[in-house]
């Protein structure tokens, strides 16, 4: 795909309601490579830009299962295979006693999987990003809402797209340099 000097076009909105409707219309207009930014989570927004499957849950589940089996097998191996000892006449495989650690390991692995999974899927850390080139974007973490159409979108055309965005009555429109 040919590289354009422009990263995308960004429109700024004042309220959650505006950005959500704007995003919906952009998506309906056939733009696919789009994104929206808000200072707090807005469930409708992701829907609006057509983002549905996030995949964190799966990662977490895998992590959890790993922790669970890993935890129990570790204990089983230690007390039955590696060095079986007679501890107070208790059975080698004292599974009731092993439950606790198994449980803790499950939680630990699941938790870490959730966090790092989320970061990885979000491609974080990413301290540099073109959108930060837009001065107004600083308000994305305060009280402003932004919609962006990436230049990589098939339907993207610097003139057409700008006109389309204007039709959404944003506070302002700015071009995001790559």
């Amino acid at each position: 795909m040919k590289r354009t000097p422009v990263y995308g076009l960004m429109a700024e909105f004042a309220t959650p309601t505006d950005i959500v409707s704007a995003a919906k219309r952009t998506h309906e207009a056939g733009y696919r490579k789009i994104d929206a930014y808000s200072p707090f989570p807005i469930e409708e927004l992701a829907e609006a830009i057509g983002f549905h499957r996030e995949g964190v849950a799966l990662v977490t589940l895998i992590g959890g299962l790993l922790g669970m089996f890993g935890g129990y097998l570790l204990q089983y191996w230690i007390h039955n295979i590696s060095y079986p000892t007679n501890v107070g006449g208790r059975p080698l495989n004292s599974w009731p006693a092993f439950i606790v650690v198994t449980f803790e390991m499950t939680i630990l692995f699941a938790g870490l999987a959730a966090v790092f999974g989320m970061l990885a899927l979000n491609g974080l850390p990413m301290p540099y990003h073109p959108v930060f080139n837009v001065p107004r974007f600083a308000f994305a973490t305060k009280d402003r809402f932004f919609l962006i159409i990436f230049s990589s979108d098939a339907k993207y055309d610097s003139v057409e797209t700008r006109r389309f965005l204007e039709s959404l009555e944003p506070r302002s429109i700015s071009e995001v340099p790559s």
Partner: protein
Amino acid sequence: MDPQTPVTERRKAPVIAPGHTFATITDKISSIVLARPVTNAWLVGFGFFGLITMMLLYAIGYLFLRGVGIWGVNIPVGWGFAIVNFVWWIGIGHAGTLISAILLLLRQQWRNSINRFAEAMTLFAVACAGMFPLLHLGRPWLFYWLFPYPNSMNYWPQFRSPLVWDVFAVSTYFTISLVFWFIGLIPDLATLRDRAENKWAAMIYGILAMGWRGSARHWKRYEKAYLLLAGLATPLVLSVHTVVSFDFAVAILPGWHTTIFPPYFVAGAIYSGFAMVLMLAIPIRKLYGLEDFITLRHLDNSAKVMLATGLIVAYGYAVEAFMGWYSGNHFDSFLLWNRLHGPYRFTYYALLFCNIGFPQVLWFRNWRTRPLRLFVVSAVILTGMWLERFVIVVISLHRDFLTSSWGMYYPTKWDWMTFIGTIGFFLFAFFLFVRILPMISIFEMRTLLPEAEVKEAE
């Protein structure tokens, strides 16, 4: 907030005072960190607790030099202050996780303004707690033998021991609380990054924020991960104090060998935890003028939680006492007798007063909504919960099966220095926290505003 609050507000205080916008919330909270100059009050407190932390280090140094013998522990009372403090601190930690995780699952929006520093409190409390199991070892420099690592002895930890469970439970708890707290911070760190005038501040917050830019996709994954973490932290927090209670319940000692322990330890933990939350929240909201965000509603609710958990704890005591009599096991009945008439009876009476008697004032709204009174109640409860652990550990140990091996336990100055030292360290860390991180979750506060609602565009 002063007692003369408008009647309206008293009837049903909101979780956030009217008249705030996204901008005002953001500015007010972030300015505490970015704009507000260092106050003398802060410096004094910071310095003072810094000194106490030094005392802690001194006590620890001497401990490593001479051995645990400098404490009051002996045979039969092999565990003294160290374990008492450990359980106490762990318990305190629990409130943080409860507020941030369980209340989140329960959709209790009022949590949003207190969860941040409650979680910080959890971290510091668990850090304090974590010290003790290590310090109370006879040979602390071998603590790592409690972890399974491929060593040249080909020998492993003994996973039937509750102490190993502790190691895993506490370290898991600390790790999860830490990441939970941290990802909660990410969006706010981004906010600070974008607000900071100082280049270096911007840098640091920027690195920590990891380039968060609030993309809708990110938010969706973020929310999911946060929810899952909450879902994981909830059973975790319950398990941790259950495991701690196993330290006692698994032993065969009269007074320890009880099935009631897990539930009533957890309840007790939350009980003391909320007490600590209030003891921190009440002065902070005054000092930093955050009455708008930490409103009487929060105090009221926390007080109610304390009342509820307090009653569960009371029930726990009742069952213990009843079983002592009903079981017909004369060791248990003697334990009860010993608590009531033995040499440590006063600790038991004091505990009954602090944990059951006095907190009943919380039935009255005007105790729940008067910050000063609430502060006192919390202090009393914290003392009571410490005493509870003392009663469980020491009274059970000092007179067990064989009358010939009965003994007494007298804490030494080193016991006290270590205990007070950890309190100092706890507050020291907390002072640091309020200076450099937003003590209230900004982005979650934003969601509390009415305009955060997306109105259906027709």
